[in-house]
């Protein structure tokens, strides 16, 4: 199996700041689920931002290959259209823009890239209905403006719904469990599990082990001070839950 994502000695920072990522190496294949854990300030969100191409971040050393191509040459929208999806920790509100309308614009942008025909309103609605049941999302949510007035749980569920519609090759879930009560967490996790697919890699970025109780990763990595200091299977996460990050950080 070819590698979907290869991160080689990646150093990156916020423009004008000091390096936050200090030499990340990571290889991800299609079909795999990776969890990246670590304490506050370890660089977890920076990693997701850099992979998604968020403006304001810059790579200072090393490089990333996505589907065999240099990622650095692609803008954030090109990355998205080529199958990189970021579920935001804080999904953004866009008032006046209908959630369905937004999603259709996004889906058609992605479909166009794949050489598929754009969906008209009726076809889109049909596609939506098929995915709705998957995630236990009320239709009402789709009629409202993008994330405006959504509860924390609704926002996260909406992110996963977007992921279901856009069918990315690489999904990065940035602290998707944060701010969720146990029922919402379970619903979101169920959605993600249903989106596990041999053709799709999922990277979960999280603080806590509890998300991994619901979404079982193939690999767990510990990020500390901008480097991966430990990698293993899901037992590593359980170990962390007991012993904390401190001993690993010092080992680095």
């Amino acid at each position, binding site marked *: 199996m070819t590698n979907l994502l290869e991160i080689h000695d990646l150093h990156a920072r916020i423009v004008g700041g000091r390096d936050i990522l200090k030499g990340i190496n990571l290889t991800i294949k299609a079909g795999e689920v990776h969890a990246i854990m670590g304490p506050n300030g370890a660089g977890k969100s920076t990693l997701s931002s850099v992979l998604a191409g968020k*403006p304001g971040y810059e790579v200072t050393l090393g490089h990333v290959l996505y589907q065999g191509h240099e990622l650095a040459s692609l803008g954030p929208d090109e990355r*998205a259209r080529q199958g990189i999806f970021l579920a935001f920790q804080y999904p*953004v509100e*866009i*008032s*006046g823009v209908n959630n369905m309308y937004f999603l259709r614009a996004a889906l058609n942008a992605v479909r166009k890239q794949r050489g598929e025909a754009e969906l008209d309103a009726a076809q889109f609605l049909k596609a939506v209905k098929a995915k709705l049941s998957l995630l236990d999302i009320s239709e009402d949510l789709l009629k409202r403006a993008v994330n405006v007035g959504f509860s924390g749980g609704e926002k996260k569920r909406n992110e996963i719904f977007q992921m279901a519609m856009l069918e990315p090759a690489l999904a990065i879930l940035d602290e998707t469990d944060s701010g969720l009560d146990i029922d919402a967490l379970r619903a979101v996790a169920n959605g993600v599990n249903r989106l596990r697919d041999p053709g799709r890699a999922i990277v979960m970025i999280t603080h806590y082990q509890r998300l991994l109780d619901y979404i079982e990763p193939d690999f767990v990595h510990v990020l500390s001070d901008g480097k991966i200091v430990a990698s293993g299977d899901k037992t590593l996460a359980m170990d962390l839950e007991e012993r904390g990050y401190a001993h690993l950080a010092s080992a680095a």
Partner: protein
Amino acid sequence: MSATLDTVETILAAGEDNYKYGFVTDIDVDELPPGLNEDTVRFISATKAEPAWLLEWRLKAFRRWQGMTAPDWAKLKIAPIDYQASTYYSAPKAASGPKSLDEIDPELLKTYEKLGIPLGERAALAGIAVDAVFDSVSVATTFKDTLAAQGIIFCSFGDAVREHPELVQKYLGSVVPPGDNFFSALNSAVFSDGSFAYIPPGIRCPMELSTYFRINAAKSGQFERTLLIADKGAYVSYLEGCTAPQRDENQLHAAVVELVAQEDAEIKYSTVQNWYPGDAEGKGGIYNFVTKRGACRGANAKIAWTQVETGSAITWKYPSCILEGENSVGEFYSVAITNHMQQADTGTKMIHIGRNTRSTIISKGISAGRGQNTYRGAVKILPGAENARNYTQCDSLLIGKTCGAHAIPYIDSRNPSARVEHEATASKVSDEQMFYCQQRGLTQEDALSLIVNGFCKEVLKELPMEFAVEAQKLLAVSLEGSVG
């Protein structure tokens, strides 16, 4: 440094040359030399073979104007205008009166074709009756006969003066008196043509009426008048569009629009204003000084103004409603964009005179580049306006950090039973919003356009469908030069 700013600047830079209506039509014209005096006024009136009363009306307005000074209270920086340097009459040759479409210069038809305005067969498909005003005169009015079957009059202003003098004389200047302001006085003296519509009692106009204004000639001003009357229980929806060639000098546009809604009548007046805005450095562009006002004369009358103002170097415009009739309703929905060096000072006046009158004002101002955007509104409740209601919402969206947005609302309530609400917000297109949209696959331009369209949604949904689509595209184009 803000990433949005980078984004916006990139887009701004990409949009330098995006005014697709900036072409000039090469056509023979009858034109007055520049300059303005009583003879100019007499010439215009004589050319149009006007009755004596109208010439007198013009001359009175002209003398009035001579004693007036241009208003300086708006938040606009305008270099002094030399009114003697403008040309006050320019007409395509042999177009001294509306003709059948076959007689129109093919160059003109081509022009309207380019503008996407259907004057010929396609008008029938579009189902919109169009009156096209090219420089100073109306060149074609479509669907006249279909409308006439229902007693609806829709024609050029010149035709109305000839064929329906009693209606013109009765209503002309009854909502906007010639001496109302500097520009209305100037217009009253030198107006050359425009559109006229009269909807008889109880008739619901079966199609959208539309006027398309086009300034073509160099150094010429355009001074058209629109007079629209909905008699008792009548309904009409009226659309107005405007474009002009791309020229380095500023051109003057000073129009007057008067609406009269009698008892139970309703008028919906929608404008998409896309005059040439000047280049990125502020060179050229139309000076748009327009007086628009509607009177709800009878009980339960309703007038709704919807405007999308994307063009002009300077916009000075306050479509207003005088709510005389009991239970009458005035509405104002506005989107105004200023990009590059554009300046807009626009808003409305709602004057509540009758009992239970209601008004709604929704204003969306978008500023980008070095644009300056001012909302100026007045809500006036007179002592007799028992239980009057007003709701005003005034939102500003800023793109980049070299532009400005201002809100200047005046509220004057002289009846204690009145209820007046005012809400205002100012926001910026955030980096996070842009990134969120792009992360879902939208290009920078599409992302910005989506956000801006969302911001304007409450206004755009008031536009008739075909106009709404055009307006959305226009927003995108204006925002290419300022917004996606």
